C-alpha cells in the first residue's frame, strides 16, 4: 500500500492485513517499554486543517512509539493562513524529507489531491464528509477483538449520517468484511442513495437496533439545528438518542461505540456511555494500535 485515502478503494485483503498487523502493535502498546524500531529513520508529518485533539495525538503517539521523527502542522499556525495552496504546502513538507503526510481537511478530496501530485505516502485523517478510514479501521479492530469476526455482524450506525465521514468509511469497510450495516437518524440527515452504498436505512431506532451486535452513535453538531435539519435538541434526543430501552432490543452482548467526543444525553445517555456494553474508551487505545499498523505498512 502506498496511501490510505479511504476504505472505498481499499481491498478486503488490505483491510485484513491492517487489522492483523494492529494485533501485533497492540502488544507493543500494552508493554512496559513502548518503543519499537518499525519506523526508525522515517519522517512523519501531521497536517491538520481542522482542530482535533484525539486523532492527532493518536497519530503522533503511534509514530513516536515506532521511533519515527514526527512533526505537527496545524492550519492556524502555518502558512495556510497566508493563502498558500494545499499543493504548495504539501510540496514544501515533502521537500523536507517527509515519508508520510497525515492530513485532516474540512473538504472532501483534499488527501486525494496530495496523493495525485506528491511522491510521499498520504494518510487521510478525515476529509470533509468523505472518509475517515483510520477511524473505521479502529472501529472494526475493536469489534473484531470482542466478536472474533466481522462476518455476519449487524452494526447500526445512528445519528447525522449525512455529514459523517465516519459513517461512510464504516459502511465501505464493514460491508467489505461481510457485516450488515443499518443506518438510522433524522430523515433530513440521510444522504440520498445511501442504500446503494450497501447500507440499509431504518428510520425507527427501535426497529434499527433489533438484534444488533454493535450500536455506533455519531457525533451531532448542535449548530445543525439552525439550518433546519432538526427542530430542537430535545426532540432529537427524544427520537434518536440511544438509551437503555433502545439497548434492550439489541442482541445480548451488544457493543456501544462512538467515535467521540460524545454529546452526553444527546446521542446517547451517560448510563450507556459509562456502562458495561460501552467500548468507547477502548476504541481510543485501538486507534493507536491501528495507526501504528498503518504507518508501518505504508513505509515498509
Amino acid at each position: 500500500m502506498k496511501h490510505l485515502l479511504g476504505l472505498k478503494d481499499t481491498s478486503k485483503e488490505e483491510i485484513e492485513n491492517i487489522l492483523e498487523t494492529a494485533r501485533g502493535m497492540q502488544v507493543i502498546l500494552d508493554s512496559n517499554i513502548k518503543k519499537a524500531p518499525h519506523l526508525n529513520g522515517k519522517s512523519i508529518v501531521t497536517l491538520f486543517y481542522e482542530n482535533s485533539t484525539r486523532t492527532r495525538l493518536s497519530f503522533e503517539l503511534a509514530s513516536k512509539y515506532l521511533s519515527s521523527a514526527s512533526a505537527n502542522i496545524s492550519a492556524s499556525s502555518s502558512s495556510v493562513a497566508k493563502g498558500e495552496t494545499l499543493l504548495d504546502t504539501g510540496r514544501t513538507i515533502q521537500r523536507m524529507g517527509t515519508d508520510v503526510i497525515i492530513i485532516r481537511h474540512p473538504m472532501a478530496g483534499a488527501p486525494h489531491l496530495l496523493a495525485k501530485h506528491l511522491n510521499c505516502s498520504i494518510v487521510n485523517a478525515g476529509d470533509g464528509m468523505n472518509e475517515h478510514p483510520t477511524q473505521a479501521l479502529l472501529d472494526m479492530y475493536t469489534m473484531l477483538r470482542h466478536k472474533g469476526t466481522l462476518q455476519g455482524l449487524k452494526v447500526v450506525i445512528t445519528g447525522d449520517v449525512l455529514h459523517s465521514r465516519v459513517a461512510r468509511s464504516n459502511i465501505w469497510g464493514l460491508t467489505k468484511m461481510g457485516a450488515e450495516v443499518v443506518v438510522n437518524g433524522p430523515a433530513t440527515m440521510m444522504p440520498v442513495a445511501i442504500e446503494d452504498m450497501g447500507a440499509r436505512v431504518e428510520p425507527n431506532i427501535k426497529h434499527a437496533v433489533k438484534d444488533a451486535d454493535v450500536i455506533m452513535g455519531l457525533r451531532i453538531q448542535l449548530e445543525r439545528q439552525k439550518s433546519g435539519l432538526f427542530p430542537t435538541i430535545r426532540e432529537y434526543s427524544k427520537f434518536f438518542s440511544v438509551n437503555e430501552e433502545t439497548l434492550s432490543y439489541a442482541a445480548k452482548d451488544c457493543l456501544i461505540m462512538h467515535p467521540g467526543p460524545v454529546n452526553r444525553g444527546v446521542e446517547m445517555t451517560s448510563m450507556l456511555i459509562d456502562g458495561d456494553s460501552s467500548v468507547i474508551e477502548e476504541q481510543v487505545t485501538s486507534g493507536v494500535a491501528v495507526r501504528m499498523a498503518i504507518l508501518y505498512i505504508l513505509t515498509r
Partner: protein
Amino acid sequence: MVFKNIRYVSVNEDKVMDIHLDDGSDKVVDAKNLVAIPGLVDMHCHLRDPGYEYKEDIASGVKAAAKGGFVKIACMPNTKPVIDNSAVVSYIRKKAESLKSVKVYPIGAITKNIEGKELAEIGDMKAHGAVAISDDGNPVMSSSLMKKAMIYAHSFDMPVISHCEDKDLAEDGSMNEGFVSTVLGLRGIPKAAEEAMVAREIILAEYTGLPVHIAHVSTRLAVHMIRDAKKRGVKVTCETCHHYFTLTDETVYGFNTYAKVNPPLREKEDVEAIIEGLKDGTIDAIATDHAPHHEDEKKIEFQLAANGISGFETAFGLSYTYLVRAGHLSLGELVDKMSIRPLEILKIKDEGVNLTIFDPNVKFVVEPEKFVSKGKNSPFGGFELFGEVMYTVVDGRIVYTSDKVKG
C-alpha cells in the same frame, strides 16, 4: 479560394457543390472528403475580458472559437467590470472587431453588477450592440424584479436569458446531488434547484406573455416542463451544452475538478432526456458555455475549484460524434441547433458567407494542453471524436485553417 466538390449541408439542403470564396486567393482545394455547414453560432460563452485576462482575453477566446468552427459568439456579462453599461459593451465590440475574425456579440447584465437589485441600462446597452441580457451565474432571485426585467427588456426587443438556479436550494453544493455526491462526501446541488427556477421562468413567461430563454438545461424534469410549456404556447426557448449530453456526474469520481461545472453534470436519465429534448425540438440550441479558467483554479480542493469547462474547441466534435454519428440527430438538425436557432433567438441578422468546414471521417483525439484557449480545463482529454474543424469562414474570409490541411 475554391472548395471543389464539397458536400454542403444545411437544415433542408444536402448537396455536392463548389464553394467559391471571394478572398483574393486562387487556391483550389479538393474538398470531396469535407463537409461545409452554415457557420456555428455560440449563444453562451465567457471571454473573461475585461478583468480576468489571465483566464482568457478576447483575442485568445476568438482564436479558440475560430478553431472550434464558430463564426459568431455571444459572451456573458460576468466580467470585471460587469457588462452592465454601454461602455463595456463598446469596449468588447471594438476589441473584437479589430481582430477581423469571429464576430463577438456582448450579452449585457439584467441587473447592475449582477447583484439582482436594480435593472442595468438595458436600452443603452442594446443601442451599443448588446444582443441580450442575462445575470448568468448569479440568477435574479427576486421574482418581481425578474418579471419587470422581462417586461422592460421586451420593450427594447432584448431577449432575456435565464441561468436557472435557486441558490437557496443549491445551498453550498459543489456537484450534482445523487449517489456519486453521497459516495464522495461532497455537498450536492439538487436538480430541484435548477427545476424550481425553470418553473418560475415558465410561469413568468406565461403570465406576461413574453419570451424567455433558459440557459444550459441539464435535467430531465426541466426538459419535461419546457416541453409542456411549449405545447401550451408559452414563449420559452432553451439551450443545452455538449457536456450535458456526453457526461454524467460519474466523471467527478476521483475529485476531478475538470468535471466541476454549473449546472453540475447530472445522471444517466438526465443525459437521455436531454438527447430526447434535442430530438423532438424541445431544446432549441446547443451552446458551449465556454468557461476558461487558469490551471491554479482547478488544481485545488474540489469544493474550492472554479466551475466551468473550456468548450470552444470540443463542442462541435462532441456534438457531431455523440448526436449525429450516434444517430440521434441528422446533420441538418445539428446545424439548426448550432447555427440557425441561436441566430434567431438572439435576433442577429445572418449576412455574408459564414461557413464551418469539417472532416466527418477522420478520428481525432482531444488534447486540452494543445487548446489555443488559455483555459485548458476540459474533462474531455483523450476522447476520440469525429468532426474536426478544418476551416472557419467569416464574411467570406478564412479565419481559421487547421494545421492538417495547411501547406
